[in-house]
């Protein structure tokens, strides 16, 4: 399973272009792709109306791909009250993009998010410190490297910024909790997962960590985000709670109605029909057979105890047969 958790999307996007990008990522071997909407400034009052609604009209999604929705929210002013929690129910993943050091440390320490995505297409205006990054990692928030800006051939500057940003991020986090995604504006910005792992290896992330960055770590981001949304305090999630007892009751009541009798009488009648005596459990078929056999045996033994009368008809039967 390979994950690409950042494919930019806007409502005005060309559907054929998007479906081409999706089918190309499927061709490259990605299984899970998150469509990302970018926001900055203030959180709109009605987030749900603005959210990405899947499936999107006129967009073909290739068979092995699952789509997710994600929002990337740019934070430049840490003093502003952002109401970030209102974003959570509308999107699968909430990513924050801090543009200065204060915003970054706030994101790492307290703001509610699943992912911190630094903009690596521009030169980072501050130094990344292990202490702030470690706070985020402790909370289970991961960092993202978006490779597309440097790979599409936009020039030397973009490539340099990407490489310097990526190496800085790898150094500051010591390779922990990093995911790699594309942020590709078109299909040309996408690269195969193993190519990406190799790039990360050249930049100083070990091969295993690189593999994890497109597989396990990305999966953890998705699953943790899901847990945060659906479960009780992000800890307990009920997958199957058994059949509800209300159902049995409803069935019984139904039977009462069909019988058209009082409840107790109806119960009694039901039990009799099931073949049980004096309010016991209804007998199973094998048990009934067993009882019948035993009764027969007992009958035959009592017959054999009365010798002559019992044997004569038996013999006559045999002589008839021969």
């Amino acid at each position, binding site marked *: 399973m390979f994950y690409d958790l950042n494919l930019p999307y806007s409502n005005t996007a060309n559907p054929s272009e998007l479906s081409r990008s999706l089918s190309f990522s499927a*061709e490259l071997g990605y299984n899970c792709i998150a469509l990302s909407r970018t926001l900055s400034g203030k959180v709109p009052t009605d987030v749900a109306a603005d959210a990405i609604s899947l499936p999107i009209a006129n967009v073909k999604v290739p068979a092995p791909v699952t789509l997710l929705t994600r929002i990337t929210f740019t934070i430049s002013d840490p003093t502003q009250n952002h109401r970030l929690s209102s974003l959570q129910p509308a999107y699968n993943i909430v990513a924050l993009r801090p543009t200065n050091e204060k915003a970054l440390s706030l994101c790492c320490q307290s703001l509610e998010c699943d992912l911190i995505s630094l903009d690596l297409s521009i030169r980072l205006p501050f130094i990344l410190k292990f202490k702030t990054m470690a706070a985020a990692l402790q909370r289970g928030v991961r960092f993202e490297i978006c490779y597309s800006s440097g790979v599409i051939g936009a020039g030397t500057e973009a490539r340099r910024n990407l490489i310097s940003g990526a190496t800085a991020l790898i150094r500051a986090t010591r390779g922990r909790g990093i995911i790699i995604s594309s942020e590709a504006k078109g299909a040309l910005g996408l690269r*195969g997962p*193993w*190519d990406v792992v*190799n790039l990360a290896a050249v930049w100083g992330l070990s091969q295993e960590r690189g593999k994890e960055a497109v597989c396990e770590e990305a999966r953890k981001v998705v699953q943790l985000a899901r847990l945060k949304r659906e479960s009780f305090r992000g800890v307990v999630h009920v997958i199957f709670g058994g059949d509800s007892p209300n159902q049995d009751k409803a069935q019984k009541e139904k039977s009462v109605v069909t019988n058209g009798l009082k409840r107790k009488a109806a119960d009694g009648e039901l039990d009799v029909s099931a073949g049980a005596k004096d309010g016991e459990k209804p007998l199973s078929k094998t048990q009934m057979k067993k009882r019948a056999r035993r009764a027969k045996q007992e009958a035959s033994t009592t017959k054999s105890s009365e010798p002559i009368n019992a044997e004569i008809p038996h013999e006559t039967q045999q002589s008839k047969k021969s």
Partner: protein
Amino acid sequence: MVRIKHRYLLIQILYPSLQTRNPEAPDSVLFHAPTAPHITSSTLIHLLRTQVSLLFGDYGSGVLAAGFSIKYFSNATSTAIVRCPRAHYRLAWAALTFVTELPGATKALSEGERCVFRVVRVSGTIKKVEEEAVRRARRMICAVQGNGENTGTLQAVFGAEDERGIEDINADDMEISDEG
């Protein structure tokens, strides 16, 4: 005597932005379109060398100077096998990842096709790489034949006159001259 060790990279050239010639062909077939005939092994190795020196400078070109070559290239399947020294194969691979377009037919006249290089297999022996190439080509043919009910799809993709290309894929033994 210890021999010099190499890595062989099996490469596919993909064309994600190509406009379709046949609307019924599946997308994956379109991405694997044949490469333009003016691209040969020598243009390709030249492209890679310039890319390496652009990315890694004199150090990269120096380290990859010996034993960096194209062992096989097929225009019909857009598949290539690149050999590079084992110690530095990652540099060569990274250089491949950063390639965005092929050179045009003539330098001044036209822009080249936009493409994506994708490394499919890395191996220490050329044999395994060949096997993988054949396997992939065969899977591709199956995908085309299974998908397009109209037999024209295959021709539309590989070009009607380019019969040799299709035979080339079918052949079990891809001929690769191994001088090294």
